[in-house]
């Protein structure tokens, strides 16, 4: 039944916050691609769908479309807007992660946080890797929407929530209920959508590092740490940070870089909250 669900997914819905901004963009007289990019760049669900369509065999673009700005450039503003506004899937997928007790705004915050953390941390030691991992860090939690759907369909929300609260490892809980994890399901969708290999490979093993091939190991470890610290249950909580730092240490990363990055993010968040 899990198979069935993600085979149904043609497009992911936009988050409500994005919709408001898009409406405004649609009404504005100056439709600059940069403005549109700015809006959708914050929405992992739209970004994933746009990348999917831009990589369709139908267009036969010479190389894989790997960035959102290139996708907008190729598809055009009107089509990108249409994709963003597409309502086709709204009935199957809800934009709140009900099973995880997280609403779309909170999800929005967490994905932005993840991107910011990755940017801050990885740029301290590998700028090329940072560019490569920015999109995966931003998109890696997308599969949660499907898992949430499955849990709700099976009426298992209560026990699922309970297990999430009492268990530190979200992936383990997911595995117990739907026999797959967020990273696996995200990778499967992206594979089906023909997104570029690097993106898929770096996400696929995040929840099962032990079976990760060597050439993706570092990327996968980084994403796992980001996901641990900015986890959907307790993002940036002392405990999550502690776990993240421990992992970083065991994987052999310089924890100083990570600590710096976390402090930066916390500073920014505090500043953001105070204004």
């Amino acid at each position, binding site marked *: 039944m899990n198979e069935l669900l993600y085979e149904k997914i*043609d*497009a992911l819905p936009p988050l409500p916050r994005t919709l408001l901004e898009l409406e405004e963009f649609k009404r504005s007289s100056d439709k600059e691609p940069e403005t549109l990019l700015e809006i959708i760049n914050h929405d992992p669900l739209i970004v994933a769908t746009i990348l999917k369509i831009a990589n369709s065999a*139908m267009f*036969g673009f010479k190389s894989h479309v790997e960035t959102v700005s290139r996708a907008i450039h190729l*598809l*055009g*503003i009107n*089509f990108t807007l*249409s994709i963003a506004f*597409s309502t086709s899937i709204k009935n199957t997928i809800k934009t709140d992660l009900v099973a995880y007790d997280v609403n779309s705004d909170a999800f929005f915050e967490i994905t932005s946080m993840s991107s910011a953390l990755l940017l801050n941390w990885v740029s301290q030691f590998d700028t090329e890797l940072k560019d490569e991992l920015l999109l995966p860090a931003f998109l890696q939690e997308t599969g949660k929407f499907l898992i949430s759907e499955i849990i709700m369909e099976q009426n298992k929300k209560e026990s699922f929530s309970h297990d999430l609260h009492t268990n530190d490892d979200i992936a383990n809980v997911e595995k117990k209920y739907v026999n797959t994890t967020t990273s696996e399901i995200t990778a499967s969708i992206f594979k089906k959508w023909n997104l570029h290999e690097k993106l898929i490979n770096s996400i696929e093993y995040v929840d099962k590092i032990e079976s990760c091939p060597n050439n993706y190991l570092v990327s996968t470890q980084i994403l796992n740490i980001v996901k641990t610290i900015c986890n959907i249950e307790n993002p940036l909580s002392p405990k999550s940070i502690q776990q993240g730092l421990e992992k970083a240490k065991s994987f052999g990363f310089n924890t100083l870089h990570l600590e710096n990055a976390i402090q930066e993010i916390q500073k920014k968040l505090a500043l953001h909250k105070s204004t």
Partner: protein
Amino acid sequence: MYQKKVLSVSKKIDAIKEFSNNFTVLYVQNKPDKTILDKLETLFAHIVVAENEKDAIKEFLKHDISIMIVNLPNEASNAFSTIKKLKSLKHNLFILVLSSQEDTNILLHCIEHNIDGYIHTPFTLEVLTKEILKIINKYKLELKKYQSYANQYLKLFEKRNMISKTDLNGTITYVNDIFCKISGYSKKEILGKNHNILKHDDNPIELYKNLWDTIKVKKKPWKGLVKNRSKFDTTYAVETIITPIKNLDGEIIDFVAMRDSLDTSIDDKRYLLDRIEKNDFSILVMMQIDEFELLDKFYNPLTVNQVERNFAYNLISYLPTTYTFDYIYTLGDGKFALLTDFQSFEATQLNIETYLNEFVNNVKNSTLRFDDLEFDLNISVSYAIGHYMLYEDAKAGLEHTMEKKNQLSFSNDLSISVSQEAKNNLNMIKTVKIALENYNIVSYFQPIFNNQSQMIEKYESLVRLIDEKGDIISPFEFLHISKKGNYYTKITERVLENSFKILHKINTELSINISVTDIEKTHTREKIYWLLEEYKKDSHRIVFELLEDENVNDFTVIKDFIRHVKQRGVKIAIDDFGSGYSNFERLLEFEPDILKIDGSLIRNIVHDAYSKSIVETIVLFAKTQNIKTIAEYVENEHIFNILNELGVDYSQGYYFGKPEAL
């Protein structure tokens, strides 16, 4: 004329029963009489019994009563006032009065109230049947009258609408002429066939579900846009109303479908927009038969129409077999569209551009034949993908494709750039207006050198616009657009004024650009004559550079002008000679003193032998005609040396000097 033959009682009863099934009888019995009720029940299937007058009114309002039978009480006046009241409510209510009293007053009342039958009680069944039969015949007559009105209304409808009727099983039982015309079937072909024959697969299944649920279950009229398939496999989309026709008992007897025939011609566009709206994402392919306006000019409308129809009919076969678009939308004036939903096409893994290129080539390699005529038609194709502004994008793209003489273009966002362009144009027109008001249309002057003497012997006056920010705008950006805003003439006149004024500052010749269009304008012409008069002693220093134009309306005006100004010592130069429309024959009519060789030839002269030999020919020709030559775009020494070698008389270009304010 009715019932001339005497029928037996039982036959009369049968005749009544056959008809009385269709209506309800109200019996007002006043005093219960079982024998009367029995007799009535043998004749009527539906009897409502009222005990008294008051009761009668109540029952009358509850049922649809056709015949009322009143057994008069001893005191009858009350009964007659009720009869009067009910008659006023339903003027075609038939009334039979039964009375036991032999009272002439009652008979008079009956006549006064236009009662349809009167029987004295007690009576036999035979008497009753005879009287009822009379009433029923009257009833039938009334019905016919009503039907004749209804038929007249119906005829009016039929003239405008496409009408068909089906029975409960969907078998077509009636179609009108307009239906035949649009569907392509004759009455003979279509009557007795199931309505499915018109069904088009494009209509969503939900449409049919909703339709049947409305008309069969809810028994209500249904309205919607339906696509139907004609006999010739073409498709027509029509706004359709289907109404279940019910009998007196509320049972459906058949369905009548009505469509407005006037809509069918414009329906394709509406249908297209409707489908785009319903699809999540679509691929819209819009095409135009190339040079359709020529077709329109050379053939009669009937043939053109036939070309369009035949072309549309064949379009499907021109499409590559790897994917089928199932419907051709005819948009008029040689325009057609194809639409499919994005997902279906995407599932095929086909490349859209490859697919459409093959289509364009198939059209190119085909010949349309009918009635001994052959047409080799080509098409320009624009396609857009998406949802929002899809039609606008494809349409703007099609215009763009035709303009650029491309065959195929991907048109996403084209409507944005078109509106952006319109906005820019509007802004530029505003800028021109402001510049005119503030005398910011100015003239720059570029020196022209004599190749022999190496001296500045002329200047060319070149127009510039200074915008509100103080930026200098070149004529390429504003001159063409000014024509749309009707500022062009004003600019020309401003240029003339500026240029003539500068004659005081320089002592060389001055070259001023004027177009054939300028000369054709009386006002501009008179302005020039006036200026030449004003600057009489300097007019021999004026050179008019004429730019040829393909749209010369009246060449005698131009010739007269040239003669007129030449008499005042003005010289004539031909601008951009060697490119565009200039030709040697026309040249002589202008009687030029100077030829300005086209800049594109000069710019390439160092590397392009072809350009060089054209310039050589022009110089040779000019020399024999005693015409001087000027080379433009002389950007460096290399160019200059070659020109000198070829014997060109004058040079103009950055190598010698930029246009500047004097």
